[in-house]
């Protein structure tokens, strides 16, 4: 990775393959995207071609069978999932029922708030969502001002793979329409944040008022295939 050190900015720019080499077996990996919008496709593709395994994947969904993130499951690279909606990929329920993987379901709002919490140093918070349902079983219920809430703990990751529209060379990011979704939140919540972008511009080329993810959250920038 010596070569990139002389690149513009602070040398956060890497190739997709270089970036994926930073991921180790057994990692907890957050992956941005909702349905097919805002997925870091190139990073996901490279991850499915790598030999990395025993992964915990923290994501909204898991694509479809043998497609996108779903490929990780098909390949047997997944140990467990933390997420929200796997109905688009029936292989998830099957693998879970067969005891092949562990799955922790969180309501979508709790899921993203728990990720934000990890990013901003909040270890736990109370939310009304899931009170009285199966998903709050064995969790602490507490009343504030006469209403019941469930205690949810922060969800942190070793690595976040996110998708943005443009980065400047410092790592400031902007997004594109509903491809934003979980990406800015996950960018705050992992030890190593790898952002796949369509375009890399010079510092100062993004409007300081419109930058969504400030560069201090981003460790590595890769240019996607598009």
């Amino acid at each position, binding site marked *: 990775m010596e070569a990139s050190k002389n690149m513009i900015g602070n040398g956060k720019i890497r190739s997709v393959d270089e970036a994926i080499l930073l991921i180790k077996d057994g990692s907890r990996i957050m992956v941005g995207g909702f349905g097919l919008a805002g997925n870091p496709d190139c990073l996901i593709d490279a991850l499915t071609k790598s030999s990395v395994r025993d992964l915990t994947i923290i994501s909204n969904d898991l694509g479809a069978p043998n497609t996108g993130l779903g490929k990780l499951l098909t390949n047997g690279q997944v140990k467990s999932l933390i997420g929200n*909606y796997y109905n688009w990929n029936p292989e998830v329920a099957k693998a879970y029922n067969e005891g092949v993987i562990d799955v922790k379901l969180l309501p979508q*709002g*709790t899921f993203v708030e728990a990720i934000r919490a990890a990013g901003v140093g909040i270890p736990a918070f109370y939310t009304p969502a899931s009170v009285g349902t199966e998903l709050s079983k064995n969790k602490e219920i507490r009343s504030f001002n006469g209403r019941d809430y469930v205690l949810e703990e922060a969800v942190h990751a070793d690595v976040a793979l996110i998708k943005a529209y443009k980065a400047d060379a410092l790592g400031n990011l902007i997004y594109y329409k509903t491809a934003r979704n979980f990406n800015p939140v996950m960018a705050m919540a992992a030890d190593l944040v790898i952002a796949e972008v369509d375009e890399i511009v010079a510092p100062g080329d993004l409007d300081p008022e419109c930058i969504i993810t400030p560069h201090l959250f981003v460790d590595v920038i890769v240019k996607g295939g598009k």
Partner: protein
Amino acid sequence: MNIIPEAEAKIRIAKRIARKFSESSKKIIINLGVGIPTMVADYIEGGNVCVQAENGMLGVGPVAPEGMADRQLINAGRQPVTETRGCCYFDSSISFGMIRGGHIDATVIGAFEVSKTGDIANWVIPNGKQLGVGGAMDLVSGAKEVIVAMTHTTKDGKPKLVKNCSLPVTGIGEADMVVTELAVFCFEDGEMVLKEIAPEASLDLIRSLTEAEFKVDANLKTMEV
């Protein structure tokens, strides 16, 4: 048992809910779930209704016309949509902040069952084939008004308005209104009240297709269809 064919029933339900929104005299923000709820948008009139999608957009426009779809511009049902003037984008934490924080005036959701006290079961049928919850639990607990859009009975004629939910619940006592092809119910002081009845239906018919006990509003109306 299906007095109204399913496709027609769904349209009727969507239209009835759309009318409620179209009649609003003030600006309202709504969130639409997958299925019948999504169809509601097609029938809303007037400029006072603004649609939020929990994947991060306010001011969601109609579904994108053929050939104009942008894979990166979708609603929460993964349909390609369009922009409206003054729309904006935000991340999922802000989106659910809007929902959980009570900033959404109404959410329309589908359901498998609604109990007589307003419990809603809509996220899973425990047959091991599905694993997913979505934003439904956040929506039913956070939106100011929760409107359930569902056919009155299952395909084999079993009541969906039940004494107690037999399926895993999404929220306890969260339903405010239920619209079926045969009737409109509201929850008032924890009790289910029949407000409107379809032209084809008699009160006896509604009673026979509804397991949950309900009151009949003194001002019971015929549902406009």
